[in-house]
């Protein structure tokens, strides 16, 4: 049960990452949450300095973030699938062990 619980935690994290990345792709390029279109500029304030960013710059930056999220999410899903496979394999072995033990535990 512990292995399945671990797999579930990894699956939730992975699905969240992939889900957020997919949602970000649908939402398109944004500036402070507002959708941007080619030709728009976005004002960012960092450490007291104002910086104008173009649509292309924001698209590249947000594209990298989404890729990272999608990749990380996929990695967690892969680990989750591995944990499920290991749990299924372990469970099969434990059923075999119980069956074999039944044979000699019935000797009196």
């Amino acid at each position, binding site marked *: *049960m512990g292995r399945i619980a671990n797999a579930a935690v990894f699956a939730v994290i992975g699905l969240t990452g992939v889900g957020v990345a997919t949602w970000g792709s649908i939402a398109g390029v944004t500036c402070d949450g507002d959708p941007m279109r080619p030709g728009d500029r976005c004002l960012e304030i960092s450490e007291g300095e104002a910086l104008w960013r173009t649509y292309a710059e924001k698209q590249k930056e947000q594209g990298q973030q989404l890729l990272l999220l999608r990749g990380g999410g996929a990695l967690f899903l892969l680990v989750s699938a591995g944990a499920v496979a290991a749990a299924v394999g*372990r469970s099969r*072995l*434990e059923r075999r*062990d*119980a069956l*074999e*033990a*039944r*044979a*000699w*535990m019935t*000797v*009196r």
Partner: protein
Amino acid sequence: MTTYLGSDSVPMEAAVAAGSRALGPHQVSYPVQTAGRPLVGLGIFVVLWTAVAGLMAVSAGDSPGLYGSSPWEAALPFTVLAAVSAAGFLLLLARSPIVSARARQLQVHVFEHGWVRVRRRRVEVYRWDEVLTLYAAVGTSKAGHLRHPVHHYRITFADGRHVSLRNYSTDMVRFGPLLVDAVTRVQLPRAAAHLRADGTVAFGAFIVTGGGVATRKGGFLAWPEFGGVSVESDQVSIFDRQGRRASPQAAVDEIPNVRTFLLLVHALAKNPA
């Protein structure tokens, strides 16, 4: 059939359950444990998230628009985390024997032929001779400088029931070794009898035979060459008289009835069947 109705140490429900399965005389009782580490951990999270929420609210008040439109908005995610941690802390505390009279009644009562576990909604009865497989994971888990004792026993019974006993199920430091000893005492003569009658007894990755120890992967070490069993870093392997490892390593918590296996092999190595 012996029952101990009205005994000070065994409540009526446990005594009746023990009598119904002929468990014999009562020996010892162990109380359920307070989940101390999870409580402390959740308490730390409550303090941590509350402090971060406070800092976020103060920072947002000083620099409007930096983290959100208002101090409350900025602090909201960490306030939610603090509230969830606090809810977990209070739930654990309410169910712990420190404050709950019912939790103090949730004990494991050991009898000569088995044990009774009083739980919140039911009373469970188990006999030592009904244990088919007992996997034991006992040790210390390490996370950086933090060390955490691990007591995890997974048991399958002849009637198909599965039980998992962990650190806080009861006083596992005492009950764990007692459980392994009692189960081994029942299993060892049966394993030896089956070996004489059938010629093999399997223990997960290892198969004990009249001629030696075989592994699932096809290895075999005859008793005259058998040097012993090594249990190191939670890994079990067999080695020959020259001290060379003669089997793949198997995790100790993946070998069923590992104590019975070790004692059987030890006895056979000295006096082969």
